């Protein structure tokens, strides 16, 4: 709801205004309607969650075009699988799981990871860092330069607050592996930030 209210005015469609009637503006209501193939309700869910989903995709891929594709794929898959959503987890978590799968699937298929590293190395302003300011921007840049496995775990655990078990489930790795990747990420980040003089 918060994302919906902060969305630009141009994002609001007449249908969405119509949805702002009492009783049907809640997420559960939209989910129920979307499960009955109501595309307008699904659009409301999209508006509500797109920033978090896109942010996750962008932080995991580091490439704007890839992140856009992954975010779109996430919502298309969510629409197709919506009848299987039973509310066992939060809708956002369910979406994030699909988003992580979409990212992993795309990265497996394409060999753009090497290009991504090259782009990130060449440009000091990584795609995701534009959303951050000050020291956080430096950290964001450093995260973007991490190797794939370490970056994915760091983003899910440290940025999005998932546990090692949840991150491991999403990434298809054991919690122990997630811990090891986090340790690696921390070491590499500390090294990077130290080299650039951001930490002692």
């Amino acid at each position: 709801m918060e994302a919906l209210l902060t969305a630009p005015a141009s994002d609001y469609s007449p249908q969405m205004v119509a949805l702002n009637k009492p009783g049907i503006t809640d997420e559960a209501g939209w989910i129920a309607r979307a499960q009955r193939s109501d595309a307008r309700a699904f659009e409301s869910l999209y508006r509500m969650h797109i920033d978090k989903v896109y942010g996750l995709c962008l932080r995991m891929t580091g490439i704007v075009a890839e992140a856009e594709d992954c975010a779109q794929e996430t919502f298309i898959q969510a629409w197709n699988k919506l009848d299987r959503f039973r509310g066992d987890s939060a809708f956002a978590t369910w979406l994030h799981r699909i988003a992580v799968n979409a990212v992993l699937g795309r990265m497996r298929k394409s060999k753009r990871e090497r290009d991504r590293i090259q782009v990130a190395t060449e440009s000091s302003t990584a795609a995701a860092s534009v959303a951050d300011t000050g020291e956080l921007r430096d950290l964001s840049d450093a995260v973007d330069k991490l190797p794939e496995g370490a970056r994915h775990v760091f983003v899910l655990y440290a940025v999005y607050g998932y546990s090692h078990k949840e991150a491991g489930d999403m990434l298809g790795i054991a919690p122990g592996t997630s811990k090891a990747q986090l340790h690696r990420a921390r070491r590499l980040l500390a090294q990077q930030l130290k080299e650039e003089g951001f930490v002692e």
Partner: protein
Amino acid sequence: MNDIDRDDKLISAASGLTTGISPERDLWPGIEQAIATPKRSRWTPMLAQAAAVVLLIGASSGITYFTMKEEPVVIQQFSAELRFEQTAFGAEQTLGSVYRGAQGDYRTDLDAELEKLSPEVRADIENNLALIKDAIAEINVALEKNPDNVLLQELLVRSYREQHTLLRRVGALTKHVMVRKDI
């Protein structure tokens, strides 16, 4: 600052990174277009796939059964010049296992050797083999109607011989290419 303090500070700082980032363009039109296609039942493609697999296995088994069941082509009469085929086709004057085995071996060699040839030469050889194969098929059809026709029998055997020779020659083609080692 020790490693633990630094790590804690790092994780703490990372939790402050922005999690919600607005895409530069509205992604909804693309999604809307994609989901506009009516949902298909997830069982339909699976059932279709299963049916396709069953059909494929059935067809494959059927072909294998009829192929195995079919009697080999019987060469009832030979002219004097066809001694080679008489030997190659076995004592019973049929397309014997020796011939079939040799043909299989040549075919295997051929596939390996074709890889080494230029696309143009490869295409020529494949075309010639296809022509011979078509000729054999046509002669077999004619023989079904006139099984005692000696001319057709001879033509059939000659075609098999042509095929055999071509396979043998191509199979050995690149093995006998001379290489100069004095350069």
